[in-house]
């Protein structure tokens, strides 16, 4: 005879229960929101949320026309994915250079990582555009993409290096003693163990890339941040447009985070 025995419910007093805790939190949020709204009201700011949708999209004669914010978002996504691929490639190259047995290679890789990580990205973008791109004749959008890629590559290089170094030395020695070539060693033994370690921080780098892509607005690439600033300088709706823009960035980054989380689960070490 099958009887399912349910474990006895823990005796929790009502003021510690889940629903009461949630209620308290919602009440606190409501209070904070009330303060924020009061502050805005006493400033006499006129909220014009009804004027925001036209900057996202317009429907003219049944035709869907993207507004400036949407167009900016598409440019941001375009810049981001190209910079992400480049950052991964450059970062991988720098990491392998740092792990190599030469003398100049690791020194070069180390200086690259230190210089790029320790200078502000704004300064790097202005140097890239006004000096490097001017000398080499690189067009505006590619200057932005290159700067972003090189910036994030420094972080990617360190993450990849940390992942590879984290694989126990014994694995490498065992592989070599079994006669694996260097390339096969990396491909079959080291990288499969290193990659699951690298995925969470690499996901973080991708999210950072999306956020840092806003820096291209100083060289007037028409990305989401640039378009938002233009709309604001025309309409002065600073609060509404900035909140909308932040929400748009949030949608992109949260989607990416969920994607990376799925990848992590798939490649989890058993």
């Amino acid at each position: 005879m099958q009887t399912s025995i349910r474990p006895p419910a823990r005796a929790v007093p009502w003021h510690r229960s889940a629903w009461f805790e949630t209620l308290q939190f919602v009440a606190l949020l409501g209070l904070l929101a009330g303060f924020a709204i009061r502050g805005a009201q006493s400033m006499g700011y006129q909220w014009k949320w009804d004027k925001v949708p036209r900057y996202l999209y317009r429907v003219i004669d049944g035709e869907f026309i993207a507004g400036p914010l949407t167009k900016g978002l598409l440019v941001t996504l375009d810049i981001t994915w190209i910079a992400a691929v480049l950052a991964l490639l450059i970062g991988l190259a720098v990491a392998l250079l740092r792990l190599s047995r030469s003398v100049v290679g690791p020194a070069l890789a180390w200086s690259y990582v230190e210089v790029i990580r320790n200078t502000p990205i704004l300064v790097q973008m202005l140097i890239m555009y006004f000096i490097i791109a001017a000398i080499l004749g690189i067009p505006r959008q590619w200057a932005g993409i290159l700067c972003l890629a090189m910036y994030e590559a420094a972080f990617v290089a360190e993450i990849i290096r940390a992942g590879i170094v984290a694989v126990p030395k014994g694995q490498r020695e065992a592989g070599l003693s079994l006669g694996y070539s260097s390339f096969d060693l990396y491909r079959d033994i080291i990288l499969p163990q290193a990659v699951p370690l690298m995925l969470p921080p690499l996901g973080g780098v991708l999210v950072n890339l999306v956020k840092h892509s806003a820096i291209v607005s100083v060289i007037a690439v028409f990305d989401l941040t640039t378009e938002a600033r233009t709309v604001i300088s025309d309409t002065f709706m600073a609060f509404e447009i900035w909140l909308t823009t932040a929400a748009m960035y949030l949608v992109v980054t949260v989607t990416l985070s969920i994607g990376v989380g799925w990848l992590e689960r798939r490649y989890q070490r058993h």
Partner: protein
Amino acid sequence: MKSMKRILGIGAVLLMAATWMQPVQAQQENMVETIKSRGKLQVGFSSFVPWAMRDKQGQWVGFEVDVANKLAKDLGVQLELIPTAWDGIIPSLIAKKFDVIIGGMSVTPARQEQIDFSTPYSNSGQGLAASKQLASKLKWPDDYNSSSVTFTCRRGVLGCKVIEERFPKATLRQFDDDAIAFQEVINGNAHAVISSEPKPSFFTLKNPDKLFKPSPDNLTISVEGFGVRKGNANSLTVFNDWIAKNKDWLKERHGYWFKTQDWATIVQQ
């Protein structure tokens, strides 16, 4: 002990709720009273040659600085200059970061929806400086209205709107400050830059091999006024009276900064 904490907690929440319940209204400020009791006039402005710029010692000088200094002296208070990014200066005024905008702000209908302006105390115009490398073959003004032409401007100035209206087919790139906007044209990455006179003329004189003026006239003329928050009618009256009383002084100062280059030696060239 636990019940004590609970009572304190509930008490704090009730206190917050009680203050929240009070009705609140946007009050009619009496700004001049506030300024006098504070003893300081807070002026928002942005760096714009020759309205306001830094001299060789790093001090702020310029037409607007003179105006702000005299206004503060006549009101009997100290002056606090608050340099602000131009495209954020109106939101900053509304957020009460300072009392008044004295920064060569042109009076436009869009701005008048957000803030109030005093009577005009100066006027100026917008002019262009074009790239010899890219634009010397273009005919003014028809050839400039084409999708292959790029204009630059500083974000938030009147000139940007003028370009959008007069040259809708051209690409307009907006930058954070004038120096970068002019540099784009000098480097040959854009066809022309629009800015408030006399800056285009100054830059053309300084870079005769890279820049030229496509048209000797100003593209538009504009009037400038002090910017104050809405709901300050009595303070506006005080400012307007001051402007009317100092008309001749304002004209003389404007002439000094805009029509002559006598001050050129005190600023970085």
